[in-house]
């Protein structure tokens, strides 16, 4: 897991947040991400993120469910073991509709939720580094990545002028690992190799 250095700007009002995001991008600083306690309408466009295709995936899962249900029931009742149940036809399509519909919805829902968790790297026991505990409370937290070319003081001053209520530097690990939130966070440190003669 790479450890990177960030300069974090925290905002508390949407009115200052949107212009700040626009100006940060105009200045060319690399926004690592923007953590908010709730979804803010229009923020993903302001950040230049592409639209999600999760609903398309959902549709594909739904079609899978429909096909599975229809083909399985048809095979059972026409090929595998056709039976005379009260004189009903061997391929009673209206009778199949409830189960086809239910399986469509089930496959779509389960598939979408699992895909969502996979894409967002969400699962039980997943542990990540968080930039500010109030990102899930009432602050909008924007870490900006620090490269060799970045002038830290310049970025800090810019964030202050953009209306940030808190600005600080932080070393953090990106990505996720398996762990518990009950244990203290210790950053990965390179140990000096000692040679005993």
């Amino acid at each position, binding site marked *: 897991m790479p450890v990177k250095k960030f300069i974090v700007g925290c905002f508390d009002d949407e009115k200052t947040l949107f212009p700040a995001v626009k100006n940060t991008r105009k200045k060319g600083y690399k926004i690592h991400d923007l953590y908010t306690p709730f979804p803010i309408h229009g923020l993903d466009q302001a950040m230049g993120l592409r639209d999600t295709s999760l609903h398309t995936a959902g549709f594909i899962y739904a079609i899978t469910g429909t096909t599975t249900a229809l083909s399985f029931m048809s095979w059972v009742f026409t090929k595998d073991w056709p039976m005379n149940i009260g004189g009903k036809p061997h391929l009673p399509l209206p009778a199949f509709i409830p189960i086809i519909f239910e399986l469509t919805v089930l496959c779509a829902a389960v598939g979408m939720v699992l895909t969502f968790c996979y894409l967002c790297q969400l699962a039980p026991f997943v542990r990540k580094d968080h930039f500010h505990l109030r990102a899930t409370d*009432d602050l909008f937290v924007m870490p900006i990545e620090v490269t060799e070319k970045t002038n830290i003081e310049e970025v800090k001053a810019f964030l202050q002028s953009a209306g940030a209520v808190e600005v600080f530097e932080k070393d953090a690990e990106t990505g996720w690992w398996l762990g518990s939130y009950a244990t203290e966070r210790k950053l990965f440190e390179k140990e000096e190799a000692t040679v005993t003669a």
Partner: protein
Amino acid sequence: MASLRYESQTREPLVDGHKTYHDVTEDICKPVEAAPTRMWWIGFLVSAALLLFGVVSLYVEVVYGTGMWNLNKTIGWGWDITNFVWWVGIGHAGTLISAILLLFRQGWRTGVNRAAEAMTIFAVMCAGQFPVWHMGRVWMAFFVLPYPNSRGPLWVNFNSPLLWDVFAISTYFTVSLLFWYSGLIPDLATLRDRAKKKWAKAFYGVTAFGWTGSTKHWQRHESLSLVLAGLSTPLVLSVHTIVSFDFATSVIPGWHTTIFPPYFVAGAIFSGFAMVQTLMLVTRKVLNLQDYITISHIENMNKVIVLTGSIVGCAYLTELFMAWYGASKYEFDAFYKFRISGPYGWSYWLMMTCNVITPQLFWVKKLRRNIAFTFLMSVVVNIGMWFERFVIIVTSLYRDYLPSSWSVYYRPTIWEVGFYLGSFGLFFTCYFLFSKYFPVIAIAEIKHILKKSGESYKEAMDPIEEQSTDEFAAKVAHAH
């Protein structure tokens, strides 16, 4: 930019009390973080005791058979299926509030949707008990699933509504659980980040799945919620339709009618909202959440109750009309001899009073906004809806086509009552655990609507109200 959004002054604020985002977090998380009170322990232990009694009743039923429930020939379904349909009906309100009100863009759903969805999940869990345990030989319950077996393989009968029920209820439970939990993840992350105790950090850390609040993740979360809502809406309508098919596809007089699907769905929403009212009125008082579950939320739910109650009343009258107008003498007798009069006439009139007459009182605004009256009404409606299912099932079965098989009066045994009480035990045990350890209101969703519908922001609308429409339009056009 956001301040120029106009929200009408005739709508009451959805969040009272001039709250900030942090206030919202504090108000909803504080009861979760506090230790369980004595009242909670009493409620929880009483529910657990009821659950235990239910387990004992089920033991008697499994060992000695369904005869322990006084079921006999012709009355093959009694309290068991009545309870099943009653619980499934209650579950429908939660999905309606979360999914259908989301698609209708009704902001007021945010105050009650989390608890209502939890109620749905617990109600469906309770509902599922009844078809399983009423099988008699429950150890072969897995026979209802189409799995490859060594008996042919012998598959299930896909023509049967009883099997459609299996798929419908399992799908409904799974999808409701996924919808509820995916909405819960960001709120669990809030609790995780606030947690001070070690077990709380570990518990909420695991259950929050590592949620960070990243904008990309929120974008996907919104897309997921919208699609799940779009899926859940036809799902909830289909599930209770399929439950109604258990009756409508038969030939029994009083059951074999096409009015059942819309009638059952409306009845389900009716009883479900009544149960939501019962739970919400107590929850908001005990957890001090009157600013989030406001009197206008209560009023809106009462409006839905009067609407669906009227639909149910209309369905009753339609059934009576068709029984009289139609040519079937069996249908005529089923209603006019064996339902509105006869040994079970009392249950029919109780049902009519509770479901048709009493909800009409909610046309009166003062009563809609009265807490005590709403609580009383919600209990009355639930009792009435239980009797509706009882009337449908038992009064059609005890007098069907052949007079020589007409059954004696059906009275429940203690084991049957025990099973029903056990389902209450299961429901309330789960609800007590939920309300103690999980946020009962969707924190992130409330914050999302706070700046549009909170009290402070409503007051900010006052100067905009003063402007004329042309001035406002000009301002919006120039402010990019």
